[in-house]
C-alpha cells in the first residue's frame, strides 16, 4: 500500500473537520473501551495472562529461527507449502503465481492486514484477477476504494448513511426503492451479495492471527464466519502472513487467544477460531485441495535485537488505538498507511522508514493508555520516544521544532531563569483564565485551540507550590 504518512498534519486537520468521521468516532470512543473493561473485570487472571502472553512472545522471538523452521517442516509434513518473501513485491508475486497455476479469476479474501501491507488487491486487479473482500467492513471500504481505518473494524470511520449510499451506488441489480436504513438491512444485503462470490471463488486468501510451530497450523479468528467460507469452499487456500505470528504450541496460542478477543472487542471469545492444517485429507468431503502459506518478513527480522523488538509481540488486537485520544480525534486514515494508532506509530516507521512516517510517533499525548491496555505489554510510549530521538538526530523534524527545543533546553539548564519564566507564564495565564478555567483561543497557538480548549493554569507553578509545601513541612 502506498504510504501518505508524510501528510499526517494536514490529514489530521481534515479529519477533525469531517462531520461524518467525528460522528462515527464518537460512537467508537465509548464502545470498545467499555466492553473491554467489562470483560477484563470478569476474568481475575487477566493481568497474569498479560504477563504470560508477553513471556510466550518474548520466548518465541528469542528462538524465532528455530520455531519458523520447525513450523515450515510441519506445514510440509501435513501437505502444505511455505513461500518465503522478504518484500511486499515477492509476497505478491508468490500469491499471483499460485493463482495463475490454477487459472483463478475470482479470489475471495478474509481480512488480512499483511495483505494490505503488501497491496495485494491492487496487484491482483492489475493482473486480471478479481479480489473480493468478504469481511463486512472490508467489503464496504473495497466498494468505496478506501483503505481500512482500524485494524479490526476497517469501516469504523463511516456512519450507516454512508454505507447505505455506497450499497445503493454499487448494488445496482437490486430494487432502487428498497429500504436501507438500519445496519441489519445492510448486513443482510451484503450477505446476499457475497454468498455467490464465496461459491464461485477459485482461491481463498486469509491472513493468520497465529501460526503454530508444533503442528504447522494457521489460526484465523473472525466473528462473521467469512474467513471460514473463504477457506473451505475454493480449491486453494492461501494464508498471507508474517514471520512474527509464529508461536510454539497450541497451549501458547490458547493463552494469547484468551487475551485477544477480550482486548479487541470485549468478547469472552470471538465467534470463530479456526485452526487449519494442510489441505483437505484424502477422504474429506470438502475443504481446499491445496494449502499455501506466504510468509512475509518486510523488515521484521531487522527489528529483532533493536529498541523496537518488543513491537513484534503485537497480536493486532487494536486495544491501543481504541483507547488512544489522538486516534479517537483524527481517525485511522490520517496515519496514512496500514497500521494506525499507537501500534502503527511504532511499527510504521520500522517498516517504511522514519523519513516517511516521522509524524506518527509525534502524534501522541504520552498519556500511556495504550501501554496500560496492551495484552502483551508493549512499551509503546517508550518506543515512540526512541523514534522521536532518531528523527531529531537525523534532523528530520521541522527546523522550528528543533530550534524551539534548543531554546527550551538552554533555559531549562538555568533553573533560576526557568522558574522565573515559568512562574510568570503560569500566573499570567492563570489570571487571564480566571472564571472560565479554559481558553478558547490563544495568541500564536491557533493550531492548538481551533479544535480544543486550553485549560488555564491554577495560577502558580509546581515548583513554587512544592517549595511552599516543603517550607510548611519543616515548620511543623
Amino acid at each position, binding site marked *: 500500500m502506498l504510504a501518505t504518512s508524510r501528510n499526517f498534519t494536514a490529514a489530521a486537520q481534515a479529519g477533525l473537520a469531517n462531520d461524518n468521521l467525528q460522528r462515527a468516532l464518537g460512537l467508537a470512543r465509548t464502545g470498545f473501551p467499555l466492553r473491554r473493561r467489562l470483560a477484563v473485570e470478569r476474568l481475575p487472571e487477566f493481568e497474569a*495472562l498479560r504477563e504470560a502472553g508477553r513471556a510466550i512472545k518474548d520466548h518465541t522471538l528469542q528462538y*524465532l*529461527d528455530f520455531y519458523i523452521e520447525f513450523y515450515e517442516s510441519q506445514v510440509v509434513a501435513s501437505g502444505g507449502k511455505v513461500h518465503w518473501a*522478504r518484500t511486499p513485491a515477492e509476497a505478491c508475486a508468490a500469491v499471483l503465481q499460485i493463482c495463475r497455476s490454477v487459472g483463478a479469476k475470482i479470489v475471495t479474501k478474509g481480512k488480512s492486514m499483511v495483505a494490505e501491507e503488501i497491496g495485494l488487491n491492487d496487484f491482483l486487479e492489475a493482473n486480471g484477477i478479481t479480489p473480493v473482500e468478504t469481511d463486512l467492513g472490508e467489503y464496504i471500504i473495497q466498494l468505496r476504494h478506501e483503505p481500512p481505518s482500524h485494524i479490526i473494524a476497517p469501516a469504523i470511520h463511516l456512519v*450507516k448513511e454512508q454505507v447505505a449510499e455506497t450499497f445503493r451506488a454499487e448494488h445496482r441489480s437490486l430494487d432502487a426503492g428498497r429500504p436501507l436504513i438500519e445496519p441489519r438491512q445492510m*448486513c443482510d444485503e451484503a450477505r446476499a451479495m457475497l454468498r455467490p462470490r464465496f461459491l464461485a471463488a477459485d482461491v481463498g486468501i486469509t491472513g493468520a492471527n497465529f501460526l503454530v510451530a508444533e503442528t504447522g497450523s494457521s489460526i484465523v479468528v473472525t466473528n462473521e464466519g467469512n474467513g471460514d467460507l473463504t477457506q473451505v469452499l475454493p480449491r486453494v487456500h492461501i494464508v498471507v502472513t508474517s514471520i512474527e505470528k509464529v508461536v*510454539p504450541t497450541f497451549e501458547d496460542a490458547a493463552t494469547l487467544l484468551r487475551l485477544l478477543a477480550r482486548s479487541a472487542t470485549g468478547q469472552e471469545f470471538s465467534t470463530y477460531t*479456526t485452526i*487449519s492444517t494442510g489441505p483437505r485429507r484424502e477422504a474429506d468431503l470438502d475443504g481446499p485441495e491445496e494449502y499455501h502459506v506466504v510468509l512475509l518478513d518486510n523488515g521484521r527480522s531487522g527489528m529483532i535485537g533493536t529498541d523496537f523488538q518488543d513491537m513484534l509481540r503485537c497480536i493486532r488486537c487494536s486495544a491501543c488505538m481504541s483507547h488512544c485520544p489522538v486516534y479517537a480525534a483524527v481517525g485511522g486514515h490520517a496515519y496514512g498507511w496500514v497500521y494506525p494508532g499507537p501500534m502503527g506509530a511504532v511499527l510504521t516507521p520500522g517498516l517504511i522508514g522514519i523519513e516517511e512516517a516521522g509524524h506518527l510517533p509525534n502524534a501522541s499525548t504520552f498519556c500511556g493508555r495504550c501501554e496500560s491496555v496492551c495484552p502483551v505489554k508493549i512499551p509503546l510510549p517508550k518506543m515512540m520516544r526512541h523514534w522521536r530521538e532518531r528523527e531529531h538526530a537525523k534532523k528530520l523534524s521541522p527546523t522550528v521544532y528543533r530550534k524551539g527545543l534548543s531554546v527550551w533546553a538552554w533555559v531549562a539548564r538555568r533553573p533560576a531563569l526557568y522558574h522565573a519564566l515559568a512562574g510568570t507564564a503560569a500566573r499570567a495565564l492563570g489570571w487571564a483564565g480566571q472564571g472560565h478555567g479554559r481558553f478558547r483561543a490563544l495568541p500564536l497557538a491557533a493550531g492548538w485551540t481551533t479544535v480544543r480548549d486550553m485549560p488555564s493554569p491554577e495560577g502558580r507553578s509546581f515548583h513554587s507550590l512544592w517549595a511552599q509545601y516543603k517550607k510548611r513541612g519543616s515548620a511543623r
Partner: protein
Amino acid sequence: MSETRERILGGIRNSLSRGHLEPRKEAELRARLTAPPRNLVPARATALDDRQRVELFVAMAGEVQATVTRVSSLTAVPEAVARHLAAENLPAELVMTLDRDLYAIPWDSWPLLRIRRGRAEAQDRVSFTPCHAAIAETGTLMLISGAQSPTTLNFLPETHIVLVRSDQVVATYEDGWDRLRAVQGTEGLPRTVNFITGPSRTADIEQRIELGAHGPRRLHIVLVEDELDGGK
C-alpha cells in the same frame, strides 16, 4: 525461493547475534514442542464438578445467543430438533454428518424430518452435526473435520444445530485439545478444527451487533444429559 528462505533465517540469526542454536538448546525446545506445557489457565471452569461445568457451559453459550434444548437421551433428539425447527418456522429438512453417533439416533421416530447426509450445499437451510467437545469456559463448541464430518455444514446453512453429550463438556480449550491429541495421536490433526462460540455476527456498521453476517444466523445446541447422574 530457498535463497530467500536462507536470507530471512540468516537475517533473524544476525539480529539475534548468533548462529544456529546449540544442539542442547535445540533439544530443549524440541522437548517443549513434543510435550507442550500448559500456561496459566483461568480457574473459572477448572474448579467445577461435572454438573457445575455443564451449567457453566449452558450459561456461557446463552450469553452469546446460542440456544439450548436439554434432553435426557438420544431417543429424544429427533423430537427436540423437529420442535425447534417448527418453532423457528424452518423446513423439516436436515443435512447432517456421517458420524456413527448420528446414525444411532432413532430418526424414524419422527418421520416428517427429511434427512440427507453429506457436505452442505448452497440451498441447504439447516445442518445437524455432533461436536468433538464443548468448552465450558466460554460456551464454545469444538468441531473437527474428517471423512464423516464436512466443515461446510458448520458455515453454509442459516441454522446450525449441534449435538452435545454432557460427557463431552470440558473445562478449557486445552482440555478439548488434549482430547483431540488422544484421539488423533496416530493419524495427525484433522484439516480443520473449529471453535464456535455463538452464531455468526458483525459490528462493522456503527458498532451495532447484528447476528448472521456470513455464517449461521442461529446456533442451536441439543444437550443430551444421560451421562450424568440424575440428569433431567
